[in-house]
Every structure is written in C-alpha cells, then in structure tokens.
C-alpha cells in the first residue's frame, strides 16, 4: 500500500508532463533524425555532380555556321557535310522555301540568326538586297561572266535554265517547242504552273516568258500575263514539285519547270520529256549570299568560297543535274551544251527591281473577271 502511494504521484507527474507538452519529445526526435539524415541526403546529392564530365564535344563559337537553305536535303546535305569535313566547322542548317526564308531574314535584320542564305534564284536574292552584305568569293575570276555579281551581293552556285516539259504518253514530240505554245487553246486548263509568289523558279520562268515574248512595246507584258493566266484557267500549284507530279501522272499535259528538276525525274524513269524553248530560255543562276551582320562572317565566306569552288562545281552536273557557273570545268556530257541552248537575255537587276510589280500584276490577272470589275 505504501509503495503504491509513492508510485502513484510519480505516475501522475509523468502523466501531467506528457499531457502538457506532448510535442516536445517528438520535436527532439525529429531533430535527431534530421541531423542524421541531412548530411546523408546532402552527400547523396553531391556525389553525382562530381562525376559529371564537362561537355567536350561541342564546338566553340568560332567553329560554327548557320545556314538558311531553300535547297532540298539531297542537294545541301552532301555539300554541307563535305564542308564540315574539310573545314572543321559545324554547320547548323535551317531549311525552308526561298520566299519564306528571305522574309525571315528580312525580319531578323536587327538580330541576324543566320550567316548564309544558300539557295534561291539570284533575282530573288537581289530583291532582298538590303538584307545581304557583299562578298567577293575567292574564285571570282573563274566564274562565267554572266554569272558574276557585279557588286558581289551574291555568289552563284549553279545555272538552271527554265524548260518546258510534257507527258510523253499524252503529248507527241514536237507539239510543244516554244514559249508561245503555252497560249495554245489545246492546253487550256492542262498546264502545270507553280505560283510565282511561292516558287522562285516559277518567278524566273514568268520573267523569262516576258523577256522572250515581250517586244519593244512595253505594254504587251500585261497582255502576255493575262493570256497565260486565262490559259491556266485559274490553276496554280503550290510547290514546284507538284508541277512535275501533275505532268508525270497525266493530270496536266505540259508544264513549266527547271531543267535540273525535270532531268532528275526523267532519270527516275517518269514519263516526262524536256523541251528547251526554241524562242529562247534564260539561265538564271541560283546562288548564296552573306547575310548582313552575320555572326560568323569568316566561316560564311569560307562556305561561299567552297560552293563556288572547283570541287563542288565539278560535281554539279553529274551529281545534281545542275550547270556549273565556272569557266574551268568541262561539261560531263549529260546536259545539252550551254552553247546549243537558245538563250535569251535575262536582266537580273531589272527582274529584282520589278519583282513585286510583276507578282502583283500576275496576282491581279490570276483573280479573273470579277476582281477586275471590282477594281474599276
């Protein structure tokens, strides 16, 4: 009994203590756990960071180059890779349509993202002259005279004559011979033509057509555009590739495209034949240009030297069905000789100047009777 008396108050005291501060021992335990676990967790966090090796493969800034290109991958990729192998410069390629990329470049004039615009007819490049800075390539002397840029604004890459094509199953040879055949009612609504506002090559074709058929009389240009628009019957394709598809599968009978593209399709066995217009075609080079304010100007120069250099140029005909712009390369014999082509004059400067005007006129005729009424 006496023992119980002694025990009970102690129990009571303990009970009261436990009731009044139940969290205190817990907090203490938590502190101990934290103190034990903290360094462990921290050491766990630290360990992998020490093992992490620094990035050692990435190129330094002076070994990079950013290229905007409107060429197809099969064209730009071997050239870019060979350029990398030879120079040790990493090339970052952004591809897209000529018009799209040129608009992007003009948007980015404040802070240029690219160094070189690779591709697009030089007439299109000239239209955006304010975005580019002149560069005179190493082998300027070796370029054919008609492909030299006088102010060095662009560097030519290849020469691409505009040609007519026809479906060999549906059209007999000799039915199409010249630009003027485009106005024949026989092809009404069956002509494959790409929107010149989208495709640079189509614009070149349109200008060529104008130059060839236009006489001294300046106003006839409009009637030519009008006549062509009417014979197209309002149909235009959205990419130059579709022109070839349409002619090859018989949707259209004839079409207007570049020699290079047509030859590649013929090589692939499609039912297409080429006609070099008898009344003359023109061979507008496509080129590359150094973008104004480029971050890697030196590397860009090396690239321009490379594409106009002998090694690339000597591959053009065999590899890409393109004509070289150099004088020191013998033709491989795959393409008809340049001298045999009935070439017409093509004023690149003028085409560049009139770029917008021609496109606007074309768009205007393309819209048809109703819009003309509206305009009045």
């Amino acid at each position: 009994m006496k023992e119980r008396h002694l025990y009970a108050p102690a129990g009571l005291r303990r009970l009261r203590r436990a009731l009044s501060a139940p969290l205190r021992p817990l907090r203490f335990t938590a502190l101990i756990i934290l103190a034990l676990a903290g360094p462990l967790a921290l050491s766990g966090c630290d360990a992998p960071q020490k093992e992490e090796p620094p990035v050692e493969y990435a190129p330094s800034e002076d070994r990079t180059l950013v290229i905007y290109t409107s060429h197809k991958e099969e064209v730009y990729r071997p050239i870019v890779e060979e350029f990398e192998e030879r120079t040790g410069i990493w090339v970052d390629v952004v591809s897209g349509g000529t018009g799209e990329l040129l608009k992007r470049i003009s948007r980015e004039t404040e802070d240029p993202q690219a160094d070189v615009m690779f591709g697009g007819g030089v007439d299109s490049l000239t239209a955006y002259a304010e975005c580019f800075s002149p560069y005179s390539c190493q082998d300027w002397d070796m370029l054919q005279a008609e492909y030299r840029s006088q102010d060095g604004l662009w560097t030519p890459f290849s020469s691409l004559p505009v040609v007519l094509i026809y479906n060999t199953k549906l059209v007999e040879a000799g039915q199409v011979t010249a630009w003027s055949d485009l106005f024949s009612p026989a092809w009404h609504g069956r002509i494959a033509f790409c929107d010149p506002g989208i495709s640079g090559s189509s614009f070149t074709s349109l200008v060529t057509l104008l130059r060839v058929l236009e006489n001294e009389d300046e106003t006839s240009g409009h009637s030519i555009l009008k006549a062509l628009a009417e014979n197209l019957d309002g149909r235009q394709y959205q990419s130059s590739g579709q022109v070839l598809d349409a002619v090859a599968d018989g949707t259209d009978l004839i079409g207007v495209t570049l020699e290079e593209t047509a030859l590649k399709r013929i090589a692939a066995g499609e039912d297409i034949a080429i006609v070099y217009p008898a009344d003359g075609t023109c061979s507008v080079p496509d080129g590359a240009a150094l973008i104004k304010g480029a971050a890697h100007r030196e590397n860009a120069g090396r690239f321009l030297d490379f594409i106009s250099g002998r090694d690339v140029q000597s591959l053009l005909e065999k590899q890409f069905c393109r004509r070289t712009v150099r004088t020191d390369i013998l033709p491989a014999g795959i393409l008809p000789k340049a001298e045999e082509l009935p070439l017409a004059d093509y004023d690149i400067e003028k085409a560049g100047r009139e770029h917008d005007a021609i496109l606007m006129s074309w768009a205007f005729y393309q819209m048809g009777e109703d819009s003309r009424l509206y305009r009045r």
Partner: protein
Amino acid sequence: MKKFFGKSFRVRLFAGFLAASLLPLLLSSAMLLKTFRLRLDRQGKQETAEQLARVTQLLDTLYTSFHQVSEALKNDPSIAPVLMRGQGGSTTVYSTLFAVTEDSREYARFDLYDKDGIWLYSTQNGPAAGELPVNWGVLYASRQTAGLAFAAAGAGGNTARPGFVLSSAESDPARPDSASADAGASGVLLRGAAQITTREGEAAGYLVITMDRTHLNRLLGGSYGSQNDLILLNPYWRPVYASDPSLAGTLVPRLRSLLLEGADINDKASEDSYGTAYLPDLELYVLLSRPQTLNRDARTLLGTVTLGSALVCVILSIFLGLKLSRRMFSPIKRLQGAIGQVVHNDLSVRVTPSHDDELGELSRQFNTMVEALKQNQEQLLANHRELNEAQIRMLQAQLNPHLLCNTLDTMKWISKIHQVPQVAVMSTDLADILRFCISPEEFVPLRQEVEILKRYVEIQTIRMSGSFRFAVELPEELAECEIPKMILQPLVENAILHGLEDVTDGAVTVEVRSTSDKQQVWSTPDKQLKICISDNGRGLPKEMEGPYVCREQSSSRHHLGLYNVDTILKKNYGAQYGLFLSRRPDGTGTAVTATLPLTWEEPKNA
C-alpha cells in the same frame, strides 16, 4: 500553429502520431530512392563504360586490320602498276586483294579504284559502283592525309552522298526525304580510302573500304546491351550508323542542336542517358544511349507507393489518435464526474479502475482519497459529539445530588413527624427530581419525564399557592418514546416563572403529538415528536418569535433554560431540531415547541 495544436488534445496526439510515422517514412523513402538511384546510376555508368570500351576495342581492332590491309596493298609492288594502267580483272591483283583481306572481309568490302576514281577491283560479287569523285569526300581526304582516311557516307548512306545520281542504284532522287528514315541494308554507311602510289610517289589509285549496315551489324551486334542503342557519329555529330535506324533522324539532330546550343546532352529530364567515346583513327564518336535507370514509370511507381504509405500513415495516425484519446478520456471523464460529486459532499462515490495503467492507478488513488476523506469527516463528527457529551455531563454534575437526596429524605421524615405535610410532599418531590437528575441515563421514556415534570409542578404549586393550572396531554402511544432527560422541566419552569408572572388564574399546558413531515426528506426518522408547552401569560416579546436563537450572553442569561434545552436537542439530533417560540393562537400567552425525532430507542450516535 501553436494555437491549433493547443486546441485539442486529440489534435496534438494526432499531430504527434503523424510526425512520428510520416517523417521517418518520407525520410527513409527519400533516402532509399536516392541510394537506389545512385547505385543504379553508378552501375549503369559502369556498364556503359564497359560496353563503350568493348565497342571501341572492336572498332579499333577493325581499324588495325584495315590499316594492315592498306599497308600491305600499298607496299605490294604488283598493285600500283596495274592501277596505273587502269587494267581490271587481273588475277594477280585479285589474289593479293583476297589474301590481305582474309580476316576483315567479313566486316567490309574492299575495292580498288584507279587514280581517276574509276572502279577496277572489288572483293564483293556483283556490280560495283563505277566511279567515285576524286575531289570529293573520302578520296579527297585520303589524298590530304596520305594515310587511311574515313568519312561517313551520309546518314543512311542513300542519297545524301555523292554517289552518281544518274548511274548509281543506291540513290533514289524521287525520295529525297529518305536520307535518314530509310537506311537500307545495302546503304553505304562508312567509307575509308587510302591512296596507292607507285614507288616514284605518283598517284596510282585508291583502296576504298566500304562498310554498310550489314557489316556494322555483324561487327557490333551484341557488344552493347540489348536495351541500349548504339550510334556512330562523325566528328560533327552527323549520324553514320545507328543500331535503331530511326534514331539517326530523330535523336541525333536533337543532340546535335543541344551541342550547338552549348547544352549538356545528359540532361536530367531525358529518358535516356548517353555515354560517348571518340575514336581518333576512324574519326568516329561512339554514342551509347541507355534508358535512364530510373525511368519515369519507375519514378511514378515509387512516388505512388510513397504517397500511398503516407496516406496509410495519416489514416493510421487519425485512427490511433482517436482511439487512444478515447481510451484516455473515458477514465478521465469518469474521474471528473466523481470529483464533481465529491465537491457536492457525496463521499460515497467510487470509480472503477478500467485498466491497470497510470489512469487505473489514478482511479484507485482517487478512491483511496475519497475513502480517507470520509473517514476523516466521520472522525471529526465523533470528536464533536464526545465533546458535547462531556459538556452535558459537566452540566449534570454541577450538584452533588446524593447528599441532597439523603438530606431531602431526612427532611421528609422530620416533616412527617412534625405534621407539616407540604414539606413532606415538597421534599419527596424534590428528592425524586434529584434522583431522576442524577440517574445515569441520558434518555428516558417520555412518561417518566412527564412524571418528573408533575413533581416539579407540585412543588411550584405549593410555592405559588396554587395560582395556576397545569395540564398534560400525553397520548398513550407516545408515552414510551425516548427523549433526552430533563428537557421539559426548564421549559415549564420558564413558563411558570416568566410567562405567568403577575397573572392570576394562569394555566400551563404540555401537549405532546407526533407529526410526519414529508418535506424534510433528508431527515433520518420518518416522524417527529412535538412537545408544546404553552401558557396564558403575558406573552412573548415580538423579537423572540420564531425558532429559538441564542442571543448575546447577557440577555440569554435570563433564558438559560431555553438555551440549554435547545443546545441539548441540537447536539443530540442535529441542527434541524430545537425550540420554536410562538404566540398562542388566541392571542395571550406563549407557546414553546420542542421538536425532536420520534424514536423509541436512544439515538445510536448519542
């Protein structure tokens, strides 16, 4: 926080449980995850390193054998002249070619070209590529290095490489987008070339080593883990070979753009981790892509499990908190109720201990305490009573009654002898009264008390020459009930001496009756005895009406009789008993009522 926790014991218990269960759980699962991950990472890194080393070794060995082939062909005197002449189909050349490529033919195709890049000899059956551009790619590179040079043949090896569009079956211009997506078995992936010169140092031709997907699959298959992907890259991180061909078009461009941005390819968010090695001879990067050891699914699973356990902890904590607090609270509540009863002076209350724990002990202690309290109270009461009895005895012993009794007897006999009957009566009565007084009993039957009262009245009648009447109404059934001795005499004396002062034809009446008072439920006896002594005297001062109260000592000196009787009644029976003073209902005289419990035996605690 403190307020919240302070609010309820239950909440505090719950918080305590939660902290005690959740904290270790979360900490341990976090640590587990961490260590698990670290361990897996380390293991993964080690495996990656091993596999990379294996692949690197395989490729190095391959390069060594290629190098031996190229050296052998360069040094063979018969080869260069034949190539110089552009002569094909020479069995000597073929036998040499086959002899030196004995070991490595399984992993590559060996061709000999003349100095213009025209194909002449091949270790492979069937048609071979007719021509290679000398100023391009690997032939150009071999001239630059004057040794064995390697170059990637483009992603997938199809169209992207100069391969003579118009003549080569490898290329497919109609599908320009196939460069990365379609890496056919025949696609050339990697080319190596070495220039073969004549003794005079004149360029004679080229040895071209071509590896396609089949070759590389054969060489590298099984050297990297089955769940991993192996990618060979050129120094500019363009894909040469990918074990999973789709990766060349998806992963590699992504990693390349990461590198161009200067970012780390091994970012934490990625599903895969990458290990790399560089082969300077082949100018190739080996990239081993391995699934992240703890991928998103595993992490989600672990997270879910942890969350689930945490939830279980929370539920368990709530449950235990409620359970334990209820278990603790029910005894405490019972204890609280019992304490409340004790506060209201109910000492009979007891708490049954529920468990043999601290709270059970507490209950037992409480019981002991109440028991002790009760005993103390009873002890105190008993002490009081003893004291009172002693006082009463003291009062009673104020006279030495025996001497008086004997004297009175003697007086009685003397008066009888001398024929004075009044003296005889008085002395007889007085002796009886005295005898009654000194008798040891404290309680006497009412009848006896009344008898003594009559004696006293007899004496007073003689003293006062019979100037008052005296009557007693004693119902027979009450005659034997017990009352304290000598309580009526002082009251009657009071009535005679004070009430009937200057009153002629006075009357004193003693009236005994019993009542039952239902209202006083707390009283022990069911019935009360009321003894009313009334007179027709001059009445009572107004202020004395009502229950008798002892006033200041000086005035009560006159009422010593009343005081004593009241005290005796109260001490014997309790405070609720005593005297009640009132005027007679008819206006004159006083009535003094003594109230006491109706009992036929002495009070036990008397």
